[in-house]
């Protein structure tokens, strides 16, 4: 079976989520990756290591305009004869996959957390990760949108052939005026390690405690809703029901009580560490490791311990 995968290759490096979707698609069929922009051939060829047989690149447009990507993907699907298309369920996938679903009359399954079962149903996260569902697609064509951090990238092959193609992407109707990417930060949705602070930290002037630990770990930083509502931290750091949902390997929460709305954004994390003065804080029920103590004392100690660990490893 022929499977098409979209990846965004506009960044400096190809994101880990791209290697994840290629690894995933390889488990379903023969993989053709489709991308656009100016990325070097050598950079694209490495996708072969994760299982891509071929990479099709449309050099006629840069960027992430969803209508252009949709036209390119529909053109590529026809060219390759693919009935299954895989996206990463990130902010690009969320904008593009639904449009493509209508254009190709392909059933869309999003929030996917694993490979299809023997009966053809696809496992997904629902209710903000509080439950799982198994979805059947009733159309011949299907689109799978895979949650980041659901599968480990596997290097199995060698470089893929890179071929330029014309995806008939057409014109964009959305003009990009400015792109602001905070420099040096690890994008939260892609981070494997996350350090997060809540109201218990008492004010933005104390955030160095979170930033120091994050720096030592090489982690991204996040916060709870009251923190971003009070403008102690930017909105894009807010994880939870009304913020963003993340699935890192490690989530360290300091001074966050763990309201159900916050848990909804982080319960996909592999390991959760909770630091709180209140032993009754609901977050401890969702945690793997708990530290009942004052974040103002515990965080610097933890930062020191990580520093010591890094120096000896």
């Amino acid at each position, binding site marked *: 079976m022929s499977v098409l995968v979209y990846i965004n290759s506009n960044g400096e490096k190809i994101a880990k989520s791209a290697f994840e979707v290629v690894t995933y698609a390889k488990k379903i069929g023969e993989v053709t990756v489709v991308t656009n922009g100016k990325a070097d051939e050598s950079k694209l060829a490495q996708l072969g290591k994760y299982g891509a047989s071929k990479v099709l690149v449309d050099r006629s447009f840069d960027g992430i305009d969803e209508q252009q990507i949709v036209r390119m993907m529909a053109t590529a699907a026809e060219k390759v004869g693919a009935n299954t298309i895989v996206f990463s369920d990130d902010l690009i996938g969320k904008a593009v996959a*639904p449009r493509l679903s209508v254009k190709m009359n392909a059933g869309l399954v999003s929030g996917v957390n694993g490979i299809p079962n023997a009966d053809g149903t696809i496992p997904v996260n629902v209710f903000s990760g509080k439950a799982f569902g198994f979805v059947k697609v009733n*159309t011949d064509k299907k689109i799978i949108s895979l949650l980041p951090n659901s599968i480990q990238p596997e290097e199995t092959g060698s470089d893929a052939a890179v071929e330029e193609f014309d995806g008939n992407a057409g014109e964009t109707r959305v003009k990009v005026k400015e792109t602001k990417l905070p420099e040096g930060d690890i994008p939260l949705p892609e981070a494997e390690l996350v350090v997060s602070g809540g109201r218990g930290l008492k004010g933005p002037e104390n955030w160095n405690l979170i930033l120091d630990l994050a720096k030592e770990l090489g982690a991204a930083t996040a916060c709870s809703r009251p923190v971003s509502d009070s403008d102690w931290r930017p909105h894009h750091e807010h994880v939870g029901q009304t913020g963003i949902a993340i699935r890192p390997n490690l989530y360290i929460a300091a001074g966050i009580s763990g309201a159900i709305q916050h848990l909804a954004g982080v319960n996909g994390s592999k390991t959760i560490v909770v630091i709180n003065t209140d032993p009754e804080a609901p977050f401890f029920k969702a945690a793997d490791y708990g530290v009942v103590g004052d974040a103002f004392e515990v965080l610097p100690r933890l930062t020191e*311990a990580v520093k010591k660990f890094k120096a000896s*490893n």
Partner: protein
Amino acid sequence: MKILVCISKAPDTTTKISFTDGDTKFDESGVKYIVNPYDEWYALVKGLELKEAHGGTVTIVTVGTAEDEATIRKALAIGADDATRIDLKAEDAGQVAAEIANFAKEGAYDLILLGKETIDYNGSKVGGMLAEHLDMPFISLAESMVVNGTTATLDKEIIGGIQTVEADLPLVVSCAKGMAEQRIPNMRGIMAARTKPLNIVPASGAAQQTSFEKYALPAPKSAVKLIDPNNMDELVQLLHNEAKVI
């Protein structure tokens, strides 16, 4: 400006999730439904703010059954002019988008607003699908929007940052946090909502593309391991050797 706001019901955020009929259906007994917070707090209120600034109308549309009318009245109480319910118990996002598109085609709306996702299935699907049906640009995850004449300028979330974009109306916009300030309906709004028009139109029969065959709950989490706050070396060792995350 003619504004259409798509709303959906969603279980209250504190709902305990369970399943019935051999784990094939979401157990609705005792579940309190609310207007999906993203639709209400951000899309609907943004629509009202734009109407207040530029004039025009705000129409609510939802796909649902008679049971959903309480949530529609709540949305009307916040301030929309009228509402339409497309009479269907929809089974997937594809149906919802196709039905709303079919309705919206007749209305010549300048702006179609909806929340970034519903808090139950978290699909983020309807907005993009709707835009494709209507051949309109889709601005996803907008945090702010200013309309000047027939042009909208929006800040939208992208991976790792914010992008400022500009596009001509008509547009479909999915609304995220920051788009508007949540409003609480007042008594006057609630009284007025009772007599606002709530039209019911039949569904056009869009096909269901996907179906949930079964559900499952995650395995219960094992009890938390408590670490002495004075011994962070132990925590680091556990994260390295046991959890294998650092």
